[in-house]
C-alpha cells in the first residue's frame, strides 16, 4: 500500500478502489469482536462461529457465543472466546452458500 500511495503522488492521493470495503476485525477488551465487511457465515453454533471475510476464513471458538448485532456486513460477536483461527481461502468466490 505504501508503494501504491508513493506511485500515485504521495499522501494526498486517492486510496485504491474498494479500500473501505475491505474486511476489518477489531477485538475489544470487553469480550466483543467486531468484524466489518464480513462476507458469509458458514457455520454458527453456541461453541463456534465460522465466517468468510475477504480471502480469509475466520473461525471463532468458545462458549456462550452470541451474535450481538448483525447489521448489513457488520457483525459483533460476544461470548467467552477461547480461540480464533484464520485460514486462507484458495478461491474466495467458491465459499459455501
Amino acid at each position, binding site marked *: 500500500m505504501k508503494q501504491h500511495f508513493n506511485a500515485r503522488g504521495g499522501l494526498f492521493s486517492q486510496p485504491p478502489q474498494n479500500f473501505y470495503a475491505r474486511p476489518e476485525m477489531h477485538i475489544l477488551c470487553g469480550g466483543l469482536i467486531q468484524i466489518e465487511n464480513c462476507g458469509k457465515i458458514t457455520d454458527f453454533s453456541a461453541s463456534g462461529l465460522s465466517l468468510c471475510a475477504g480471502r480469509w476464513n475466520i473461525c471463532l471458538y468458545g462458549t456462550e*457465543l452470541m451474535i*450481538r448485532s*448483525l*447489521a*448489513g456486513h457488520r457483525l459483533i460477536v460476544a461470548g467467552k472466546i477461547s480461540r480464533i483461527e484464520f485460514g486462507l481461502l484458495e478461491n474466495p468466490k467458491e465459499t459455501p*452458500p
Partner: protein
Amino acid sequence: MKLPGKTACFSRAGLAGLTFEARGGQQEKLLNWCISHKVQLCSIQANDTGFTADIAAADYARLHAPARRCRTRLRVIARRGSWFHLRWLLQRPGLVLGAVLFCWLMLWSANYLWAVRFVNVPTQQQQKIRAVLSECALCEGQRVTEQKLALARRELLSQSENWGWTALNFYKGRLVAERTEGRPSVPVLQKDHRPYVAAANATIVETHIESGFAQIAAGQQVEQGQLLISGERPARDGTPVQQEPLGRVIGLVQRDYQAVRPLWEEYLGKTGRIASKKSLICPLGTIQFAQRKPNFKTFESKTVQEALCLGPISLPATITETWYLEKTMQERTLSEKAAREFAQYACLMQLYSDFPDAQIAARSAEESWQNGVLTCTMHFTFRANIAVRAGAS
C-alpha cells in the same frame, strides 16, 4: 404477521420488536440472506435446534420467503414495544378517529368565544359590558376577530365615562374583561359673572351668599326676575368691582299648578299575547328554533341571551330568546278618586321639576268637572331656592 408499511419507522425506532426462533433447515443461509439484504438482527443466540434472534417487527415479514427457501421454520417467541400495546386500537378505529377529531375541534374552536370572565367588575356593570359585547357580536359561540375586539373596546371606553381603563383580552376561547375605577378629575370651574335673579314671586326667608353682592335681605318681597345677587358693584371712585356671584336664596313661594285628567282615555297597552323566538348561536352558525313570526301589528320586543353551560363547563354556544309582547290601543275608564290622584300627582311632578329642593309647607286643591274631564288646580306654599342665573332657562 404483516404490519402496514407506515409502521416500519416505529419498528426501527424500537416501538415494535420481536424475538423469534428459527428451527431446522439451513440457518446460516438465512443469516447470509439477512446480511446481503441488510435486515438487522440482534442478540442471535444459537441453541440445539437453531437460533433465536431479535428483529424489528416490520422486518419480520420479509423473513418468511427466504426462510421457506432455507426450509427453516420461524416462530415468534415474544413481542415487545408500545406498538403491540396499542395494536388493539386498529380494531377500534372509531376511538382513534374520535380522539383526532376532538383535538382538531379543540384547536379549531379556540377562535370562537367559549366564556366571558370579568375581573374587578361589579355585577351590575357586568350586565352593561355584556350588552356592549352583544352589540359588537361578541357572545358565546361567535367567532372573535381583532376588528370586533377593537370595536368593543372603543364602545366600552366611550360608554363608561367614570371608568379609568377597560381591557378585553381574548386567549384560546376565553374573553377576560377588566376595568379600573376612574379617578375623579377636578373640573376647572370657569367663572360665571351672570347675576342671580328670582325664579318666582317670593318672600325671602334665608340668604346664603358665598360671593358676589346681595341685593336683597331676609323678609323682603321679590318679584319674578328681580335681581338677587349681582356680580358687579361700583367702587367709591366709580370704577366697577367684579366678583363672581355665588349662593342660594331661600324664599317662601306660593304657586299654583294645574293638571287635566279625563276619566276615559285611550292608551297603548299590552294585550297579554306573547310570542317568542329562540335561536342558538354556535360555531356552526345561527340555528333558529320554532321560528314563528309574530303577526302582531304593534309589539314590544325584549331579547334575553343566555350562555350554554354543561355544569361548570362553558360551551361555545348562546341561546338567544326574543320575546314579543303585543300592544294595542285600549280604553281605560278611571274612577273619580283615581283621576284625582293622577292629577294631583301630575301637579306635584310639575312642582318638583321647577323646584327640585322644594319643601312643601301647605297645599290645597281645587277641582272642576266638565264632560268627564277633571281639571285639578293645586295651590302650594313651599320653601325653595329661588335663585337662578339670569338668562338660564
